[in-house]
């Protein structure tokens, strides 16, 4: 799997309350989650997420298990999230909905182009390739299928 996008830089320990606050969760309208994404962190972020690669600090997605956080990021048009480490529930959630969560240490420059090739195992920024931690074979299959729903549709 390959992809690219402009970098949006975030700090470490971004919790899922900051991605989408608890007060917006009680709806099935995914658009509501996109409308309020990162509102408590930086309301101006939302406008920069289309086609973006989020490059965050360690422990991205900590806190609540709310899958709405991963869904909101995907639906906002984010291509992938790169961080040195993820909170494990967010990590599973992201892969399960087909959003690449890539474990890689990368110095982030806002707006720089970031390319990735998960099969080859690298992330590239400013002409330099960085190795990534590979997914387990099962998670690779789930991500390749576009998420766990599609995976189970193909493995009934």
């Amino acid at each position, binding site marked *: 799997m390959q992809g690219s996008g402009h970098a949006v830089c975030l700090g470490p320990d971004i919790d899922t309350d900051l991605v989408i606050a608890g007060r917006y969760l009680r709806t*099935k309208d995914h658009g509501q989650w996109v409308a309020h994404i990162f509102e408590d962190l930086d309301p101006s972020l939302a406008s920069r997420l289309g086609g973006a690669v989020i490059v965050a600090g360690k422990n991205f997605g900590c806190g*609540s298990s*709310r899958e709405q956080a991963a869904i909101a990021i995907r639906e906002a048009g984010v291509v992938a999230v790169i961080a040195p480490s993820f909170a494990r529930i967010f990590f*599973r959630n992201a892969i399960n909905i087909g959003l690449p969560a890539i474990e890689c240490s990368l110095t982030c420059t806002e707006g720089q182009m970031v390319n990735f090739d998960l099969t080859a195992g690298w992330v590239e920024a400013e002409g330099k390739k960085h190795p990534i931690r590979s997914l387990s074979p099962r998670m690779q299959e789930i991500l390749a299928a576009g*998420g766990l*729903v599609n995976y*189970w549709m193909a493995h009934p």
Partner: protein
Amino acid sequence: MSTLSERILGAPSGEYVDHKVDRAYVHDGTGVLTLETWKQMGSLRLSDASRLYVLFDHIVPANNSTTATLQHELRDFATSSFLQLSDIGGGICHQIMSEGVVLPGEVVVGADSHSCTLGAFGAFAIGVGATDMAAIWLTGETWFRVPESIGIHLTGALQDGAEAKDLALSYVSKLGMDGGSYCALEFVGDGASTLGMEDRLVLTNLSVETGAKTGLFYADEITVRYLARTGHMVQPQVPESCTYIRDLEFDLSDIVPMVAVPHRVDTVKPVQDLAGLPIDQVFIGTCTNGRYSDLARFARVVKGKKVAVRTIIVPASRSVLTEALKTGVLSDLLEAGCTIGTPGCGPCLGAHMGVLGEGEVCLSTANRNFKNRMGIGGEIYLSSVATAAASALEGEITEPEGA
């Protein structure tokens, strides 16, 4: 020689296993999305409804018609499909699962990050999101990466004024918000046997605040006696010598009252460093500190006095509330000026029933103090029950008696 996680999952750390799930549970928050996703998976098959639980706790009773409609749909589905349902007022999912449902050695998965709480029984209990849970509804199993374990070695016994919560904040502070990432925390040593089940549930509850997959105690005589009272005869788990990837040691007699300050659970200071900080609200409750022993401890401090700030007490379950009613703890709390909420999560997640206003400060016995979590512009400090009680009487952060 194996860690408890390795023993339960039947494989060494680092391996990936597919394992049957003995109990799987959702709440009204994650259940709606689980149901929607399960329907998308097409087959509309449920693996075994007797192992699947739906427990209403996050926004109970419903705060508006949108929530009510979503809850109605989930409730209808749970009833018509014969899932194990606990409706509004039953209490917090983790608490109900701890009242004689989860047993030692079981594999338990909850669609909530604090599902790690059930590791207090020597079960392997982890949180997942809605899509993983939907697949568990479908198949009855899921995949696990068998975690490496961090040993939390306990000696001594807690002294007056200190609680399991103070120890929990202490270990979170030492490990940091990601110091336990992908690992299991195992609480072992002579000090563990001085802690009752309610204390153990506090300690495993906060394990996820270090990024850990779960926290576990070995089932011992205390576990056996606790579960016997709920009608379950179980055997203790005998620890084997094993290798931890990291070891932390705590002498319980050294633990002093601590407070986590905004907006990080791992930013922890002794209560005495914050003494005198004015507060607007005290909140007693949640899957961390909403049990009967917590309400009773709070009542012992405030009985015959009046709280100086608004104080919201939300029992963790109907059983907790019923016991508080029978023993007179409830009237002590009411007479002291406390407000009692419906058993459930209360204002912990900022949805309703006690959210904070701009600039307000809450001293809470919950487990998270993230920015804006309990209301936009509100500040959350996390403490033990004894610290919260002493502070409620003074209207400012105050060291508990005996500290």
